[in-house]
């Protein structure tokens, strides 16, 4: 028996079209933008079509404003490294992932972490507004916490940023593909996404979408396949932001995933929320299990559940489940902020997250195994 509940780390399985597209790209694609032969043109077309699919899903009118990265962390690094000047201040939430907190800390970027109020948009927005200083340039926050599952009011924060002349950058790691987000409607200026979680693309892919409201200096500079005599980076996107040979095979898979997801995003999300709710309700009913997160719902909490089993550390629970063929993630999930807020430090918890292909029976089997304390 193999049950996979670590979709918050990376989704699996992937739709069949993803592997098919990657296999085709491995044969048919060369290096895009570096030649005029059929293999280079195939690669350029594959990359472009993936940009179009991402632009369409997130409300970006020009696909050139879609950048491919290796992962969401790289996208976040690109924004924090490229959008700020020395002394610029950033307002973040109190549940940010280390992908945001570590660059802020390592690069000594002044920031204020705001205590969000789950389910209370007005209070959360007021808290963000109170933290704005004359030197604030950017609000950077997660759309949904990978530990607490809390959904932040991105549209309201976008409106705040827009009203105050700031830019809004969003970490969409746990929301991309699950929650609706339209960059223009929601006043989002930078959207950072992993390709391999809710978008069902392969690992090694990520996205950075830009409104172009705030200029972004490239983090990686080098060969772009154009303007080779020029010793400075070309100005036009996406080439300006994508130096070096891209992960063409990965992007091929991501493009296929985006085209698979686009017509069924709402039904996939509804399924994930339904299984998340089932998980929460059934785990909450097990004696000796403490559930730390709120019940998943599209208004407040993304479909993940964090729990602990009395008498076991989170790693012990994860190991026990692993020996039964169940994949979960224990510990602090690269986000001590969220655990601090929940009061689950230092042990953290066991995080389970259903995916598009998780069946109700899988949920029930997981709960039965959590409840079973026999040593394996």
């Amino acid at each position, binding site marked *: 028996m193999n049950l996979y509940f670590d979709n918050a780390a990376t989704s699996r399985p992937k739709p069949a079209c993803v592997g098919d597209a990657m296999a085709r790209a491995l044969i048919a694609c060369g290096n*895009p*933008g570096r*030649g*005029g032969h059929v293999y*280079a*043109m195939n690669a*350029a*077309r594959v990359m*472009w079509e993936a*940009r*179009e699919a991402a632009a369409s899903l997130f409300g970006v009118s*020009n*696909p*050139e404003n879609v950048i491919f990265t290796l992962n969401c962390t790289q996208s976040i690094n690109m924004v924090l490294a490229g959008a700020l000047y020395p002394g610029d201040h950033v307002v973040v939430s109190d549940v940010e992932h280390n992908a945001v907190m570590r660059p802020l800390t390592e690069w000594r970027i002044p920031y204020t972490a705001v205590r969000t109020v789950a389910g209370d948009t007005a209070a959360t927005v007021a808290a963000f507004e109170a933290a704005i200083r004359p030197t604030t340039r950017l609000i950077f926050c997660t759309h949904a916490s990978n530990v607490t599952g809390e959904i932040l009011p991105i549209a309201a924060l976008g409106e705040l940023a827009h009203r105050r002349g700031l830019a809004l950058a969003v970490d969409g790691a746990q929301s991309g593909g699950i929650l609706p987000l339209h960059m223009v409607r929601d006043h989002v200026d930078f959207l950072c996404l992993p390709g391999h979680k809710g978008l069902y693309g392969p690992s090694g892919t990520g996205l950075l979408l830009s409104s172009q409201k705030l200029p972004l200096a490239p983090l990686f500079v080098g060969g*772009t*396949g*154009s*303007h*080779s*005599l*020029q010793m400075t980076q*070309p100005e*036009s*996107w*996406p*080439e300006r932001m994508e130096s070096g040979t891209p992960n063409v095979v990965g992007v091929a898979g991501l493009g296929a995933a985006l085209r698979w997801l686009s017509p069924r995003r709402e039904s996939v999300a509804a399924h994930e929320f339904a299984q998340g709710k089932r998980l929460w309700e059934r785990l909450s009913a097990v004696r000796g299990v403490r559930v730390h997160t709120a019940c998943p719902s599209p208004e407040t909490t993304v479909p993940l559940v964090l729990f602990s089993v009395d008498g076991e550390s989170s790693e012990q629970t994860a190991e026990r489940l692993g020996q039964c063929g169940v994949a979960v993630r224990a510990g602090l999930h690269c986000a001590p902020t969220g655990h601090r807020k929940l009061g689950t430090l230092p042990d953290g918890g066991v995080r389970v997250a259903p995916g598009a292909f998780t069946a109700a029976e899988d949920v029930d089997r997981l709960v039965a195994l959590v409840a079973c304390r026999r040593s394996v």
Partner: protein
Amino acid sequence: MSTIRFSVSSVSHAMRGQRLLASAGIRAAVRRGEVDPSTGCGYRLELIDATQSPRARRLLLEAGLLRDGGGRR
């Protein structure tokens, strides 16, 4: 009939331009040749039907994909 080619600044511009023209019913192929010093790039959009050149040029200019004066036979 001479061929109309529009020099663009990058392969992405070429892709976007090709899509833009296709949506207007103008077929164009993406080709690569000698680097055009005005764009720093060797990619061009080559019209299948040269008679559509004025309309294609206008569309590409409006989309910011051509510098003014771009386009050559």
